[in-house]
């Protein structure tokens, strides 16, 4: 059963602030171009590996100011393997993905592959992509 949106919101918070930074040198760089993120607040990006709990604690995270057009963030020195990204736009700068009182997200969010769920986040399987030895670029569209 997919996680609820409330879990999703909580997961984002954990993902961004509970970063376990680690990296072996000389891996590939992953460039993520984020489109349609608006121009309010900060885009909070979390990168998950299959060994992470999906939408729990992410392996890596980064943030960049939201801009109209495209926002680009880079994850450096990634080891080969599968990854998936979840992101949200922290429009009001409180560090959390806000929800309304019944737990529905009210800040924009997106996943790699532009994966979507149905009243909830997509599975890791739908959002995953592969990073090999060479550098890689992906695009994520918010909304």
């Amino acid at each position: 059963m997919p996680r609820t949106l409330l879990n999703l919101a909580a997961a984002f918070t954990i993902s961004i602030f509970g970063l376990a930074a680690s990296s072996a040198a000389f891996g590939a760089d992953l460039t993520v171009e984020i489109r349609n993120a608006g121009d309010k607040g900060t885009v909070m990006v979390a990168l998950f590996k299959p060994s992470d709990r999906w939408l729990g604690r992410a392996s890596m995270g980064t943030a960049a100011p939201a801009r109209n057009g495209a926002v680009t963030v880079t994850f450096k020195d990634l080891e080969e393997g599968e990854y998936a990204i979840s992101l949200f736009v922290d429009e009001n700068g409180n560090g959390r993905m806000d929800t309304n009182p019944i737990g529905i997200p009210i800040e924009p969010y997106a996943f790699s592959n532009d994966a979507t769920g149905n009243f909830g986040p997509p599975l890791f399987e739908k959002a995953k992509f592969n990073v090999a030895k060479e550098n890689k670029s992906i695009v994520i569209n918010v909304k």
Partner: protein
Amino acid sequence: MNRRSFFTAVGATAASAATASMAQTASSAATRAVLGGPAGAKPPLFQGSARMTPLRGYHGQDVACERAAIEGKVPQELRGVFYRNGPGLFERGAGTNKQRYSHWFDGDGLVHAWRFTDQGVSHQARFVQTKKFIAEQSANAFLAPAFGSALPAHMPVRNSDDVNTANTNVYKLGDRLLAMWEGGSATDLDPQSLHTRGIVTWSPELKHMPFSAHPKIDPDGTFWNFGTMMGKMVLYHLSPTGELLKHAVFDAPTGGMVHDFAITHKSLVFLLPPIGIDYAAMRKGAAFGQALTWNGNDSTKVLIVDRNDFSKRRILEMPAFMVFHFGNAWEADNVIRVDFVQSKNLDIMSDWMPRMMRGETVVPDRSNPAFVKIDLNRGKCDVAMRDENCEFPRVDPRVVGLRNRNVYYPVDNGDRPEGFGFTGVMRIDTESGKVDRYNFSEQVALEEHVVVPRPSSGREGDGWLVGVGFDVAAQQSFATVFDAMNLAAGPQAIIRLPYWTPVCFHGHFHTA
């Protein structure tokens, strides 16, 4: 109720999250099987008679008529716009891919404006350009889960506004014409052009919250509404120009579905029928509306909320009954009186409506005028019922929340012809118990009728009763105008369109 219910609250199943990318062909076949009956049998999706033409729905087209034909005389003082809203589109696709919703509540909102001017009466109807409607119109297929039809999601559903049909009621608040649904936000339309402006967010933290389709409006324009979802209830208090004055969110006393409520000058009054949600059925693919259960051994709960302080709430209990619509409530000497239309259980919605939507001729269960006295000192509720078979109660807007004498309803003369559409209108004088009533022939199918006050008059009932109906023989829709204190005299005017329109649920007349 757990968080899981959000997945299912507007007809999406949790399971479909994992299967949203399922091949279109496979799921279309599944859908056809659901909508079209057993494979091989292939009955037509709709087999309705001439009387049921308005249930065929439109195909997404807008209509307009600059000057409707008037029989009789429209009173000179009756000026303004009669806005109405209802589900207007039920079918998409072509040939073997054709799909039809199985529930009346699923259709896309079609907003009507009947304009009463010195030049005559015009009519215009436009589909609300919801996110869902725009996507489905361009795909010529249903993409979103629906309230009462088990359809898989073929578009992302992030919140209930992604499946919002804006199809239940319409009211002009300030410069916004609000097209209201039950499970999500109101949609703002331009009151002149009926052009869709977008969903309304009353305050940032209330984005995508449910905003029900039965607001109650004080005579001074103060606007009260509620929403229920996922076991929570939200209350709204808005100014006559549409500013949020206060709101509250709290745990709902009961689960499944709350459609309407009433106000007094001191209280918000809810009668909450014992409706549950069968999550197992939803996991097997049932739509939200199909998974609602009637828990007749439980009570119908009476929730009374202080208008000035939403944290002051009281709950009483009554034996189980079903209610969709309220007429009015008023309060004196610590006794609240509420009138509504009562039915036995959910059969009208769960059984009759899907059969009606296929065009079957089935007479629905009766629904009757009911009057409750809530004695706040004793904590006791007494209910009295009448025999008339009716729905869609309305009162004069000058007495909403205040002591009223009259309640107006469309009514059956006897058995509802072919089970569809009322044939008369009636006014019940709640003090004398007398009925003032007019019966059309069985060749009409009537909708809700509303009271329009005569300008500059403060007297209850001084004005007109205005409503809409369908002329079966002519296959045309029409509006009616009655003297609100003398329905028995028959309509003062019948205003005919050169076409039929889909049936509406509710509307409001905004006087010029």
